[in-house]
């Protein structure tokens, strides 16, 4: 049972003035405690960016190869201001979006089925193990031969990269359902559908979300590598051509866009997770 600790010492201050002083100090301390994560994080980022800019200016590294944050910022602006950035983003987003959606649906449905029916597990397990072990990245040239240089080959890579973590985590989530909860549900004469809906699925959800997060990461990597190897448009294409032409600021800018997309997606996921996790005891803080 959580106990709320009531501040019992509000009455014990020695005098009126010291009470006011404590309030002032407390307010500063409060602000710090609540914001310390953001403040410290920001300081870290500022330090990195600052030292990068400095080392380029002081010629500690060759600025032609390393570029610097100010140049990258300018390149970023130009990229989206008629430099083809918006189109590249659209292409990549489409590849990733559709590919990930397919991987999500396939991974979830297959994972739930395999986790639930032992027969399917025995059937698919060796295939999944082999498929997971094969480096999908190495198959990129093969996909280009099969699907051409356009969007389809990249889609195929995203699907194959993202589906495995989703599939495997969903299977684990279903398999590790709490047996005592199943027993309770059975004692109330729950049908298999009810068992699945009320016990298996909610219980597997945290594991599934983990799988989705991994799928996002691997899917993004797959998409970029696919575009790097062979494509006609997209953020990876920009990275490749800019790199080949030694347009370092532009290359970094495109990389930054990809990173930002990744961060954005995982933040969205974290928000979703937090809502789903409301019933859990907090492990830290």
């Amino acid at each position: 049972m959580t106990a709320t600790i009531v501040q019992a010492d509000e009455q014990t201050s020695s005098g009126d003035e010291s009470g006011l002083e404590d309030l002032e100090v407390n307010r500063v301390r409060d602000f710090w405690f609540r914001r310390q994560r953001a403040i410290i994080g920001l300081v870290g980022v500022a330090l990195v960016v600052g030292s990068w800019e400095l080392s380029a200016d002081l010629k500690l590294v060759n600025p032609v190869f390393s570029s610097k944050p100010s140049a990258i910022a300018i390149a970023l602006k130009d990229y989206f201001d008629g430099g083809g950035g918006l189109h590249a983003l659209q292409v990549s987003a489409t590849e990733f979006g559709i590919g990930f959606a397919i991987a999500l649906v396939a991974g979830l449905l297959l994972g739930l089925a395999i986790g639930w029916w032992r027969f399917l597990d025995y059937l698919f397990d060796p295939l999944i193990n082999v498929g997971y072990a094969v480096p999908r990245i190495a198959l990129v040239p093969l996909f280009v031969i099969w699907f051409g240089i356009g969007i389809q080959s990249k889609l195929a890579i995203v699907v194959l990269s993202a589906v495995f973590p989703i599939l495997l985590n969903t299977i684990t989530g279903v398999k590790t359902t709490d047996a005592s909860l199943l027993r309770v549900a059975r004692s109330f004469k729950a049908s298999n559908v009810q068992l699945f809906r009320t016990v298996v699925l909610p219980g597997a959800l945290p594991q599934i979300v983990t799988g989705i997060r991994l799928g996002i990461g691997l899917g993004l990597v797959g998409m970029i590598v696919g575009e790097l190897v062979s494509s006609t448009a997209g953020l990876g294409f920009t990275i490749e051509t800019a790199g080949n032409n030694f347009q370092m600021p532009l290359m970094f800018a495109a990389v930054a866009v990809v990173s930002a997309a990744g961060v954005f997606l995982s933040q969205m996921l974290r928000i979703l997770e937090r809502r789903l996790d409301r019933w859990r005891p907090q492990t830290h803080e």
Partner: protein
Amino acid sequence: MSLTQPGFATPPIAAGGAGELAIDHARIEFIARRDNKKYTAIGDVSFTVAPEEFVSVVGPSGCGKSSLMLAVAGLIPLARGSVRVSGKLVTGPEHDRAMVFQSASLLPWRSVVGNVSYGLELMKVDRAQARQRAHEMIELVGLSGFESNYPHELSGGMQQRVNLARALAADPLVLLMDEPFAALDAQTRELMQDELLRIWTEMKKSVMFVTHQIDEAIFLADRVVVLGRGPATKVVKVVEIPLGRPRPESIKRTPEFVAIVDDIWTTIRGA
């Protein structure tokens, strides 16, 4: 203190009355998956719980009490014999019985209300009705105010109350309780025993209560069924508890009570 022979454990009430639990020559066998050997958990057990009667089942550790409970609930099959509730043969779980397991097994992602109405939800009871009933049960077990709390925020005793409320919400004829207080500390345990008697008096259900703690068995019950040592367990004695109700906790220290404890303890030791 009168002793009844095993097999004659039915007090003179018309058989098949609503809420009567009749176990007739039950036998439970398991096959160990490892070596395919047959293990007989319960050899031959017969006794009856009359409507609105409270019967405790005690026995040495490992004698198969929990297996018997699972068979009565309909979760595992009998190798021989039968279990009937209100005259109807038990073939699987049914809403005329509800189980209270040793571990509360609450759905951790649901609040107290969500957990208590779980059984009703599975029975496809209308949502508003289910909530209403859940609130009544929550109040009955003394957890008013905790409806929106999650299981991890509750103590062990409180979780077991939710467990009990969930079982009662489905309005079963027979309540099956498998060492429900075993995981609680001694003080909470005594408190819960009092609470259980209070609730039972209000709800008037037949109860089959499995425990390995003898004083608990005697304190709660009208009759105590004593099982022998496993494997192939049998009933060795059925003890009538002539103590009146309501029973204060202090009755545990009266000479009559202690004599019954002694009697059962000796029986178990010697079995």
